[in-house]
């Protein structure tokens, strides 16, 4: 007896159709899975056997062979449990095989037969829809996520429900897809007192999607400010939200109960993170932090503490907005367009720039610290903002502007930049040229300043970049210590 279930294998952000064939033969009872299953997939045997027993269905005492076709594609993870179980049940005539063939299926089984969520449901659902399979048997928790892809999810809590549904004796709940993006929410800029300069810089960063390096002694609010950047970014469009959701789903980091990534994501990997975890990688490539931050913010706190290879690996995504990971089996492309926020102290001990304590760093240590960020990487930061230690009076001040107010300025500016970038007026160009002659400013630095000046002009709703805009932009240039 032979039966088939349809499921999908994840390859990067793509899903490939996989047919799960179950064949029952006479002979000594046995159970084998072939077709390049990885360890997790191989172990499906035990979960499927227990799951079927727990669902009070019958485990066929036959020689069972399950083939995952195409056999040459690596199958990873536990999402094959449900389709394998269903194929076995169909092959032993416990559910109608022709009904099963109208569905795609994905999900992990618990030993007691419950259906558990797995990563990448939205991607699998989209592939199913493209192949004309509109109904997807999936874990109950993942049903809203599957619904985003435009399929009709069949939410399952238990393998027994799957059996009953396919026999026509159970009608699962209808699922409504979440189709709107949120506006705001999260941490508010009003919590930040003082730090007018850094707040202003953050506004420019949000409007122009510039990368920014915040430098200052510990405890001046560098991290606190960065965490509030997503809240003033323009809200995501639905397409952007879906794109981010795909990445988060494949990485398995979608929070339960929030199927759609509806706000600009914020990621802050720790400085001990490996290059593979930051830019993506692994045998079946998984998206890294840079891709999880797609359309949002990537914060690298204490940037010079990151391993050098990690920082250097950031250069491709910063340049191209995409990470390509080559594997023997092919290439995976992960989008990675994010605003990079780096923070650093002014010296290894952290005391520099703080009038209250004396820095104990030796000149060698100081030079080594600055040297940890390569010139090429520093070149990716359009703005460098020093954050001095706020004095007591500053902390007693009233709360700052709320994120809502700032965002109301950011959104039109971002729209203007998208339509038509402001051009340099003649006198502004002259000022820029004078700055290149007077200050240590490279040609690349000049281009960065011009970019920031365009954003400043857009925030002022001007069509042309005035000298004042260039002058402000110049004040965010990288200091000599970092570029020489």
């Amino acid at each position, binding site marked *: 007896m032979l039966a088939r279930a349809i499921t999908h294998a994840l390859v990067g952000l793509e899903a490939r159709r996989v047919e799960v064939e179950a064949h029952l033969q006479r002979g000594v009872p046995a159970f084998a899975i072939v077709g390049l299953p990885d360890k997790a997939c191989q172990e499906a045997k035990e979960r499927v056997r227990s799951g079927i027993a727990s669902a009070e269905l019958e485990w066929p005492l036959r020689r069972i062979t399950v083939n995952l076709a195409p056999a040459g594609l690596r199958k990873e993870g536990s999402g094959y449990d449900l389709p394998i179980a269903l194929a076995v049940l169909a092959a032993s005539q416990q559910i109608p095989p022709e009904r099963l063939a109208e569905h795609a299926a994905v999900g992990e089984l618990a030993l007691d037969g419950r259906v558990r969520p797995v990563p990448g449901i939205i991607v699998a659902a989209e592939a199913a829809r493209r192949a004309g399979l509109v109904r997807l048997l999936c874990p109950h928790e993942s049903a809203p996520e599957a619904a985003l892809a435009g399929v009709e999810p069949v939410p399952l809590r238990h393998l027994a429900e799957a059996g009953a549904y396919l026999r026509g004796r159970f009608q699962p709940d209808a699922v409504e897809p979440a189709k709107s993006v949120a506006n705001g929410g999260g941490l508010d800029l009003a919590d930040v007192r003082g730090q007018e300069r850094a*707040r202003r810089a953050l506004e420019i960063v949000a409007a122009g999607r510039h990368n920014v390096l915040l430098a200052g002694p510990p405890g001046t609010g560098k991290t606190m400010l960065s965490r509030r950047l997503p809240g003033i970014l323009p809200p995501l469009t639905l397409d952007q939200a879906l794109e981010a959701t795909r990445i988060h789903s494949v990485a398995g980091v979608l929070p339960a109960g929030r199927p759609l990534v509806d706000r600009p994501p914020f990621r802050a990997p720790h400085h001990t993170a490996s290059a593979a975890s930051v830019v993506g990688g692994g045998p079946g490539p998984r998206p890294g932090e840079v891709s999880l931050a797609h359309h949002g913010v990537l914060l690298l706190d204490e940037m010079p503490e990151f391993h050098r290879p990690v920082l250097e690996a950031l250069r491709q995504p910063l340049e191209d907005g995409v990470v390509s990971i080559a594997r023997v089996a092919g290439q995976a492309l992960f989008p990675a367009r994010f605003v990079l926020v780096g923070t650093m102290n002014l010296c290894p001990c952290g005391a520099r720039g703080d009038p209250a304590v004396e820095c104990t760093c030796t000149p060698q240590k100081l030079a080594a610290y600055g040297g940890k960020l390569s010139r090429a990487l520093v070149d990716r930061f359009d703005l460098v903002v020093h954050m001095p230690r706020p004095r007591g009076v500053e902390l007693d001040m009233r709360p700052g502007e709320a994120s809502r107010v700032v965002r109301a300025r950011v959104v039109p500016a971002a729209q203007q930049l998208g339509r038509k970038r402001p051009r340099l007026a003649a006198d502004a160009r002259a000022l820029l040229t004078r700055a290149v002659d007077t200050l240590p400013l490279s040609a690349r630095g000049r281009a960065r300043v011009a970019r920031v000046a365009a954003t400043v002009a857009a925030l002022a709703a001007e069509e042309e970049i005035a000298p004042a805009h260039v002058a402000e932009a110049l004040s965010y240039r990288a200091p000599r210590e970092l570029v020489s």
Partner: protein
Amino acid sequence: MTYASVTRRRGYPPLLAELHDPPARLYLRGGPPEILALPAVAVVGARSCSPYGAQVARELAQALAAAGVVVVSGLARGVDAEAHRGALAAGGLTIAVLGCGIDRDYPRAHAELARRIAQDGLVVSEYPPGVEPSPWRFPARNRIIAGLARATVVVEARERSGALITADFALELGRDVFATPGEITSALSAGTNDLLRQGATPLLSPEDILETLGLEAAPQTLPDGLSPKARAVLERLSDGARTLDELVRATEMDSAGAAAVLTELELAGLIAVADGVYRRATGRGPPKAVRS
């Protein structure tokens, strides 16, 4: 590769000969040996200098170089390097005296700086190629720095800084020693403040030293189009260094406006910025409004 050199018999700078143990031979890298005979001032100080020290060294060297004075220093990190950079920025000549073989760049990170110095100026050493840097050679190197210069300026020095050794050599030679006053609470100024107590001349502006040498400062023109806001900011900075946030609160400008004004002042050479803290540039007295 062979290096040019001057010996006691040929091309030796007369000022250097006044040392009681002048080096027999001085190896040279870079420009013509005649540079050694030009009027020179040594600018030396702490390797781990503060932003204040770095700024003073740079601006002082810049003003000296602009007035045609050769700036002598030791290629070390901190004040030394800033002095060399300041002189280069003014398009002037500068001499770096090494404490190792003439073919070495020490510290290695300053190899590029040494190359720029040698383009028009000089890198010199009493040691032949191949001599490794070692701690005891640096005090000996300092006697050459003092010997080549008509006057020595110490910009920031801790209590037992090598720069004080240079000052001692200069005193022995009967040359002028200047020190920049620093905060009495800062360990980085302990050495310079002690020099002042012992009778060194306080250096308050580059003119102080140019007067001693009988030279005139390169004319500096105050930009006439300085906005009222810029004047207000300049006045604030005369009371001491300020961050942008502090200026914003003191002047009722917004952050964007203050940033623009500060850039205007920086381009005019009236202020300098380090680590997010803005200071008035050295070399000019306080603005009139405060002086009265």
